């Protein structure tokens, strides 16, 4: 039996955007725009009536804007996926990061020029539709899993397999911490990086899948909250302990040895796993520089970027911490690493920073003993 199409509530004050996005999404056989709204107030009313699988939400709107709408809808509909439909501008990037911290599930960039209808339609079908489809199907699966039936008990979570690639664990302390994240990552990173002490004895390299403007703002926000200095890497810089290097959007970040020192630099190679920057590229470069003295953390994210890099880290004797399913917005990347038996530990998000402390041989401030 064919599953019913994913039902979307499309919220945007622009009649043009509502029209061409609706038309483009309606071309997808498994997606239907169940309702549209031109502002957040209408959206709240239509959410009650339509109970959509996914909400696509504009940021700037009259009456009730995207951020105020999120603040109103999240207490009532904590689980419905909300995809911010954002512009690649300074203001759009800042509002999107605010929205992600307020509980937005994901974001997609609007086509930059709506006047070219064919190009804009293609962008909707290639960029927005897959995200809507993924979240809609995931939301339904979660609802179905949470709904016990008299005949069957709720499905138990499948326990993650025990690590199997641990033959050559390097017992010496890590010399670098590498972190990969994607969907849900901006929020997860704010639960990890600010809990690391200023005295952290290793450098931290972070790849978060995001466009350039967004990664810069993300680094600035993490820096403002953290004891560690957090910088976006836009050119080659030496790597020093106690500093966090966030990969810039649109280009890979790699570690390289330069004589006696180590740098992080940019690599304009092809995308991997459709990602640029890619977690795999950065993780592999870390193994080339530090061998098995790498501690990797794989946080929430769709897809499986990081899997290959974690395999190399494990083969070299490094350790991998994966975020657990329950605390992940989507258990794609950490799930892939866990299912492959590569995770040394699979932990809820609040336990990730303390685990980093354990691996580095020191307790972190505010961490459980």
């Amino acid at each position: 039996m064919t599953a019913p199409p994913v039902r979307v509530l499309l919220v945007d004050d622009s009649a043009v955007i509502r029209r061409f996005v609706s038309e483009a999404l309606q071309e997808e056989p498994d997606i239907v725009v169940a309702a549209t709204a031109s502002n957040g107030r209408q959206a709240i009313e239509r959410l009650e009536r339509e109970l959509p699988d996914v909400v696509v939400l504009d940021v700037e709107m009259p009456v009730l804007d995207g951020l105020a709408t999120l603040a109103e809808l999240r207490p009532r509909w904590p689980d419905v996926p909300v995809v911010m439909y954002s512009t690649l501008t300074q203001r759009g990037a800042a509002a999107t990061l605010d929205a992600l911290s307020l509980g937005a599930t994901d974001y997609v960039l609007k086509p930059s020029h709506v006047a070219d209808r064919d190009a804009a339609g293609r962008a909707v079908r290639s960029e927005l539709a897959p995200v809507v489809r993924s979240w809609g199907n995931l939301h339904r699966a979660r609802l179905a899993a949470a709904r016990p039936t008299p005949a069957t008990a709720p499905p138990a979570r499948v326990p993650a397999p025990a690590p199997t690639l641990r033959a050559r664990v390097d017992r010496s302390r890590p010399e670098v911490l590498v972190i990969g994240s994607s969907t849900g990552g901006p929020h997860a990173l704010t639960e990890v990086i600010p809990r690391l002490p200023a005295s952290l004895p290793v450098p931290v390299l972070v790849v978060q899948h995001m466009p350039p403007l967004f990664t810069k703002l993300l680094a600035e926000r993490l820096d403002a909250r953290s004891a560690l200095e957090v910088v976006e890497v836009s050119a080659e810089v030496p790597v020093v302990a106690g500093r966090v290097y966030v990969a810039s959007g649109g280009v890979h970040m790699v570690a390289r040895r330069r004589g006696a020192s180590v740098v992080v630099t940019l690599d304009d190679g092809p995308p991997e796993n459709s990602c640029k920057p890619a977690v795999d590229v950065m993780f592999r470069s870390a193994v080339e520089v530090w061998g098995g003295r790498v501690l990797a953390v794989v946080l929430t994210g769709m897809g499986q970027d990081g899997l290959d890099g974690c395999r190399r880290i494990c083969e070299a004797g490094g350790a991998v911490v994966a975020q657990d399913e329950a605390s992940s917005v989507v258990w794609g990347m950490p799930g892939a690493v866990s299912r492959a038996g590569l995770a040394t530990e699979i932990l809820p998000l609040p336990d990730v920073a303390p685990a980093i402390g354990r691996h580095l041989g020191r307790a972190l401030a505010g961490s459980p003993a």
Partner: protein
Amino acid sequence: MTDLVSNETIAEITQTFWGAYLPDAGDLIPAVDLPAIEDVRGRVDIDGAWTGCVEVSCSMAVARKIASVMFAAEPSEIAEADVRDAVGELVNVVGGNIKSILPAPTSLSVPILDDGGEWRFAADLESEVLLAWAGEPIVVRVWRPEGTI
């Protein structure tokens, strides 16, 4: 308004809308001595640190042509709802962009369209910009509450 947003800025904002939404449909240029035809009018209200409204008006023929280009449809296929959406979009974007350069915080109303009734509101005219598209007039006005100018 002269101190905050000049007539040149209002014209630029409106021309930017044309470039983004109606490219290849002819330029929008400043006009003088062109008799305004105002069959269709829309406005957005701005409230907060700056209070007033932005109004755009044009002839029905121009409004239908805007809708036709905006929605990539033949003029014969354009319904009244399309005209309302198109003029609403125009005034929403122009008003929103004017709002963005005014003192914050302010809120923007949904577009209010002339429904054929008496189109009056208690306000004083602060700015008026006359533009021409293919020889047809389009007027953008900024109004302030009575007595605030």
